[in-house]
């Protein structure tokens, strides 16, 4: 009598969808005898086997074989050049040294050129796109500023960023493009990436879409200290109060949606959602109650007003919100809109 319901519970046990009571029941049954344990292990294996089979179906051996074969052919050709390459390396070496010395000499002369810097500031709630003198395209997000020289130097293209910007860097391998964020800086030769560096958020975020970039600390020309190289689809981020830099794989799409005027959330935790809403609508939203921090949210907004967004949030999450009365400050301007989001009482 007991045997049958247990067999029915087992699939859900593996999937982890049982309630604690049922789980307890299965565990008891499992530990009751060696035979039960065997049955359980066998079931687990069968289930794993099915999942494994599903995984295998993702892979296309035919296509892969074509790739491997083309690499095999390429390899054969390479071997012929191998000997030649060794000779070439010796020949080229003196040339590199000469160029290098020349470069140092040149940079000394240009050490303190008189170059005017220009700063572009984007007010809250606005976004802008423009080209730098080297035809690099920049999208600047709300409340951001970018400083750049009206004429770039010969040995590097340096800009300074505060806030969030998306760069499509014009390719020029000889003159690296350098983004100075203060704490963590970026070196590029030709690539697309996003930087978020709002001082008040105490967070620096760098997302790479294409190409490759180097992160470094210090002054690019005099005291460069390399940190790491990013690959496409990777995000590096670091908080002000923390010395660590974390690199992770991300879906870059949601980080750059703002440049197309969209607000994208993909399984983002509530504090992140609030942070981005604050920036987007220039408001101050506070979260009340620790449970809310674990809530993940997925949505895409394009033209919605703040209240529409909040109403949508209310439908899909167990929350309620109140908008505080805006106060008139002494200079007759209104204070920022304040909103409190809290967990709904059940």
């Amino acid at each position, binding site marked *: 009598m007991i045997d049958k319901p247990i067999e029915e519970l087992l*699939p859900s046990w593996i999937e982890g969808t049982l309630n604690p009571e049922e789980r307890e029941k299965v565990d008891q049954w499992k530990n009751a005898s060696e035979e039960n344990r065997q049955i359980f292990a066998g079931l687990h294996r069968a289930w794993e*086997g099915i999942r494994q*089979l599903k995984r*295998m179906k993702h*892979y296309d051996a035919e296509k892969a074989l074509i790739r*491997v074969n083309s690499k095999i052919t390429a390899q054969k050709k390479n071997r012929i050049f191998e000997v030649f390459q060794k000779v070439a390396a010796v020949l080229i070496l003196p040339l590199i040294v000469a160029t290098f010395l020349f470069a140092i000499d040149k940079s000394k002369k240009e050490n303190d050129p008189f170059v005017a810097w220009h700063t572009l500031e984007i007010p809250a709630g606005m976004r802008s796109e423009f080209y730098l003198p080297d035809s690099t395209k920049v999208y600047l997000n709300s409340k951001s500023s970018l400083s750049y020289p009206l004429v770039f130097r010969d040995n590097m293209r340096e800009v300074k960023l505060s806030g969030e910007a998306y760069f499509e860097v014009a390719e020029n391998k000889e003159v690296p493009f350098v983004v100075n964020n203060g704490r963590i800086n970026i070196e590029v030769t030709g690539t697309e990436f996003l930087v978020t560096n709002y001082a008040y958020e105490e967070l620096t975020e760098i997302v790479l879409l294409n190409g490759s970039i180097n992160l470094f600390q210090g002054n690019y020309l005099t005291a460069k200290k390399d940190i790491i190289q990013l690959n496409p689809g990777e995000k590096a981020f670091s908080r002000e109060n923390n010395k660590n*830099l*974390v690199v992770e794989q991300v879906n870059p799409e949601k980080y750059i949606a703002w440049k197309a005027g969209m607000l994208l959330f993909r399984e983002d935790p509530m504090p992140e959602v609030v942070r981005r809403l604050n920036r987007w609508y220039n408001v101050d939203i506070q979260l009340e109650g620790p449970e809310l921090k674990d809530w993940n949210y997925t949505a895409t907004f394009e033209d919605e007003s703040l209240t529409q967004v909040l109403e949508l949030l209310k439908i899909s999450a167990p929350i309620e919100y109140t908008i505080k009365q805006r106060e008139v400050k002494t200079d007759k301007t209104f204070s920022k809109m304040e909103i409190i989001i809290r967990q709904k009482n059940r």
Partner: protein
Amino acid sequence: MEEQYLIRGILTQNKIVFDFVFSYYYSGLCAYCERITNNQDVSEDIVQELFLNLWIKHHKIKIESSLKNYLFTSVKNRSIDYIKSEQRKTKKLIHLTEEPLQYENLSSLWFAETELQAVVEKSLQKLPPRCREIFELSRLDGLKNQQIADKLSLSKRTVELQVSNALKQLRIDMAAYLPLNLLMFLLK
């Protein structure tokens, strides 16, 4: 004997044998690699790199056990190397608490796709047609029990019952197949 033929073929750069072994094991090796690395693209790179290496350095390679054993062990080692290098890459900057890697008994997943397909297929054929249909919707197409119930106008409970019946059959059939495999490779 057939095994020896394949190994010799690989080691002497027989392109037909190479292509056959590649096609036979590719998806199984990738899926196994994915279990460890959790990344499909990386898995494809690792497996392709392994075969490329097998072709180029054929004269330096020794296959002492079975070909299957050699391939899966190599993929496992390469996957672990990959994970370690990923960790090292981030370790300089990230001081997260170190979690030991868990590979459970992953050698129970040493299957080529056709082998696993055959075991599952054979087992599912023993089931009543309805039970089989439900199981395939559930496990292979990934539908939720409720979705299957709606689709076939059955109660959710019937679906659950049929899924567990099918799994029971599969468990018995795979048990006959798996432990032997497992033992063979664990003893080597």
